[in-house]
């Protein structure tokens, strides 16, 4: 458990008959940039609020740096930064909030606060309520980054940010986190951003984690294969996630061992038109596609 920043097991959170988190098993390695991906309403924010100790799980286990958010949330909050609700005291300015937060965190850095104010082009003399939504997010982020946390949890950090600031944010996250062994956990549905910076990806849908793997392992193993041939198997192996046919062509999506699969098809007289890797967005759609019976997918390392 020591090399995990976050671990959950059979975590449940129900609101009435809505199962917002429904048996979530997640393992976030320490020092990783972990992209927590899911559609709107998949359970991302609920999960994050449970981990932060802001709401209580119905059942299941969870640990943040080995501590239980239900009983040790103060100890957890001292070591971690959370950018969740993006709501601060409306009448306080950026500078007020820096002074206010400084006292809570032993590893607080004024230098970092000043640096991020410049990077994010934030006017620190303005009151929180006078800032635009994007700038409010940036101020929350600045406070989380300046506290010197071992892990920062960001819920949809780039929502409401323009492309230039998003780019600066990505640079800050890459430079200041990955190089210092700190853990970064970010939820998002901006797959192309996650694809650039994340090392690990977890895909959640209907409150369950459907896939958790190193991004490189996913990209190395997932393949789309299009073939032409007679009487081809419709699902010849457990590695086939999806089969589709149309206009004489058969398409397979595989989670592993595409090379062997293609070789077998060739011996059956098929002509292989395409064997191509999938990007994160394509993998996401295959795993979380609309109307699918969402089955967890195992990825080979």
């Amino acid at each position, binding site marked *: 458990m020591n090399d995990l920043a976050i671990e959950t097991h059979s975590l449940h959170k129900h609101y009435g008959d809505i199962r917002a988190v429904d048996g979530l098993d997640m393992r976030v390695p320490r020092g990783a*940039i972990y992209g927590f991906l899911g559609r709107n309403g998949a359970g991302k924010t609920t999960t994050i609020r449970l981990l932060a100790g802001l709401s209580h799980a119905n059942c299941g286990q969870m640990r943040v740096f080995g501590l239980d958010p239900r009983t040790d949330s103060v100890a957890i909050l001292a070591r971690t930064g959370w950018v969740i609700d993006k709501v601060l005291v409306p009448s306080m300015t950026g500078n007020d909030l820096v002074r206010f937060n400084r006292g809570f965190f032993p590893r607080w850095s004024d230098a970092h606060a000043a640096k991020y104010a410049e990077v994010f082009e934030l006017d620190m003399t303005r009151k929180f309520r006078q800032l635009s939504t994007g700038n409010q997010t940036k101020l929350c982020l600045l406070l989380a980054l300046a506290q010197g946390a071992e892990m920062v949890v960001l819920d949809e950090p780039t929502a409401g940010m323009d492309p230039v600031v998003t*780019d600066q944010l*990505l*640079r800050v996250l*890459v*430079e200041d986190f*990955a*190089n210092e062994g700190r853990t970064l956990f970010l939820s998002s549905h901006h797959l*192309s951003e996650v*694809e*650039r*910076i*994340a*090392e690990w990806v977890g895909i959640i849908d209907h409150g369950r984690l459907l896939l958790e793997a190193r*991004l*490189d392992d996913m*990209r*190395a193993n*997932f393949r789309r294969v299009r073939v032409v041939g007679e009487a081809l198997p419709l699902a010849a192996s457990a590695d086939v996630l999806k089969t589709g046919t149309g206009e004489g062509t058969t398409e397979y999506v595989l989670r592993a061992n595409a090379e062997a699969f293609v070789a077998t098809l060739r011996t059956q007289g098929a002509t*292989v*038109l*395409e*064997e*191509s*890797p*999938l*990007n*994160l967005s*394509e993998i996401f759609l295959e795993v979380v596609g609309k109307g699918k019976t969402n089955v967890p997918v195992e990825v080979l390392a």
Partner: protein
Amino acid sequence: MIIRVHTGQGTPIYLQIESQVKHAIAAGALKLDDALPSVRKLAAELRINPNTVARAYQNLERDGILRTVPGGGCYVTGQSPGLLKSEKLRRLRPMATQLAVEAKQLRLARAELLQLLEDSYDDLGEAQ
């Protein structure tokens, strides 16, 4: 040298970096003992995970293309001499298949395809 990575395609980012470095060496843009940007610098420039850059550099080092001086950067040593011919062919086969399929679909003659390959090969010049 300028490295660019694209996330739209399924090719892993570390492979994109590897192939761009190899291409730069093959084309003579990177020469023996030229320095590459540090892992940290390249990662920040490209907004990608430093482990991804590190993995690309490790693979290039394993292939005998780069050498890393601890704390002192990363330098070009030469042109993948370390690989067995069978391994080289194994790496190129998927691309060759793709090329052959496309050529057939476009009804390009075998000789025309070979000519195209020869031209591309010659365009890289004599750099070793």
